[in-house]
């Protein structure tokens, strides 16, 4: 036997894993719980955990006051659209970096990543001005493009890593078999990289869904996604914690459910190639 794990150790490990998991999940759990409290209970001191009067009132109010479905639709279009556009651009880019690298490929990859180190606010002015000039303010297409650009370095990096794992000989075989470049990417590379592409898509949908800086700054009413929907309940005056929590819960629910059902895919994709 390589390594025997005793029963005691197993219990300790499991307990530790659960503790860390709960710690990470706690803010979300607290938000969900608060959304079912009254505004008074939401700020009571000491806080109540479960023994409160469960109510759906916050949800009713929130749904009455704002058009949840419009925000949801905008979020879906912006997160989905920016990811799809990003993948379409990143697959050829990652292909060329992984399979026909030049002397500068490594530098370009690092440069792309370095753009993620720049504080977003640093480019707010230029982008804002460009948006005004082009009439893109408060438009979904504008946000799709900006979020795509923001996440493109990550998409290219992830795909590059997955593509590196695919033996070049298989693509050469496709070339010998008469495949054009487009056919080689479409019929051989992409299907082989499906696990990697899927986890890239998932991660980027989540990133784009949760992106608040650009969505809040570049939208007003028409194109505002769920992040703006949450923000509209964070008011400096009045008691809005419970309603804010209800709005937050409604905003994160779709992505939470998506993440839950695809966690296996997400984990296997993120650790792809790590264990061989």
């Amino acid at each position: 036997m390589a390594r025997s794990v005793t029963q005691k150790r197993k219990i300790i490990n499991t307990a530790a894993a659960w503790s860390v998991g709960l710690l990470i999940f706690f803010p979300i759990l607290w938000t969900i719980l608060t959304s079912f409290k009254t505004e008074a209970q939401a700020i009571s001191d000491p806080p109540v955990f479960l023994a409160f009067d469960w109510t759906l009132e916050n949800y009713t109010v929130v749904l009455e006051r704002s058009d949840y479905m419009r925000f949801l639709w905008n979020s879906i279009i912006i997160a989905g659209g920016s990811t799809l556009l990003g993948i379409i651009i990143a697959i050829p880019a990652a292909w060329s970096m992984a399979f026909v690298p030049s002397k500068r490929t490594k530098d370009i990859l690092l440069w792309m990543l370095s753009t993620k180190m720049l504080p977003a606010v640093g480019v707010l002015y230029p982008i804002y001005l460009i948006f005004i000039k082009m009439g893109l303010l408060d438009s979904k297409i504008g946000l799709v493009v900006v979020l795509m650009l923001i996440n493109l370095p990550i998409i290219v990096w992830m795909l590059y890593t997955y593509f590196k794992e695919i033996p070049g000989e298989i693509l050469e075989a496709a070339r010998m078999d008469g495949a054009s470049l487009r056919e080689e990417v479409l019929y051989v590379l992409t299907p082989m990289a499906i696990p990697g592409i899927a986890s890239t898509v998932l991660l980027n949908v989540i990133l784009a869904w949760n992106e608040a800086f650009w969505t809040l700054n570049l939208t007003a009413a028409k194109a505002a996604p769920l992040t703006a929907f949450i923000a509209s309940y964070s008011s400096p005056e009045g008691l809005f914690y419970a309603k804010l929590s209800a709005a937050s819960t409604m905003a994160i629910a779709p992505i939470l459910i998506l993440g839950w059902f695809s966690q296996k895919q997400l984990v296997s994709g993120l650790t792809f190639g790590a264990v061989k």
Partner: protein
Amino acid sequence: MGQIQLNQVTKSFGAVEVIPPLDLTIEDGEFCVFVGPSGCGKSTLLRLIAGLEDVTSGHIAIDGNDATMTPPAKRGLAMVFQSYALYPHMSVRKNIAFPMKMAKLPEDEQKRRIDAAAQALNLTDYLDRRPGQLSGGQRQRVAIGRAIVREPSAFLFDEPLSNLDAALRVGMRLEISELHERLKTTMIYVTHDQVEAMTMADKIVVLQAGLIEQVGSPLDLYHTPRNKFVAGFIGSPKMNFIEGPEAAKYDAHTIGIRPEHITVSADEGPWSGVVSVSEHLGSDTFFHIHETGLADTITVRADGEVNFRHGDRIRLSPRADMIHRFDAEGLRIA
């Protein structure tokens, strides 16, 4: 048709020239083997012909047409890779069909060719499996099937058997030879194994450091190697080389004698030595002999029945008509 002509082809990677100017013609229907030690440029040469690498200078013609700048997909050649390079996400059937799908062949023609190839390669029962569910030998057959259905003007094999175990290798070697007999299509086969080269080739191209050392039929190379490198590379066990006064007797700097052209006996023969190791293969016995005063070790291939042991002092007689003579540069003296 499948005549391939290389004209002053060179290949450099950066400042390193791996193929100096090289001319070679492979005739239609020929089984041509590129053989040489690892790093001799044989695989690079094959990849240049395939179009997977661009030539640095020179021209490649396929069937008389300049194909130097033609992309691999358009050269009409099929390649079998060392790693098989099957598409893991496709069934065997789809793997074999892939080149025909790319060529947009009609479905019924595709099916006919898949069935014929599967029949010929014993793959009929495996058509719906994925490559991951097959053994090494079966995978190699699928790779060959995928090459056959294209009906290429030439097949390119890049060390196709080196991932297989010894027994399977002999079997596949025969299958590829039979395939060549049946199809009569040009085949270019790269290997570092001189036994594969000798048994399969119509024509062997021996390469060293990107240079062609000799081109000829297997028996040409065996009987009249152009230099010491070819003499030592072709034939197993290796040719014995003897320098010094013994070579001078034959008016040469070095003489070479193959192990099978020396006879051993207990008391007769001009040379003598002590048996260091005897390897019994059943049909043959290889004796490695020290203390001959001629070379560090002289290897002799004797009949399986001959029995000397470690430490026995024996006598050796070379067959005078089988002695190869080389000058100081290692070139053959006619």
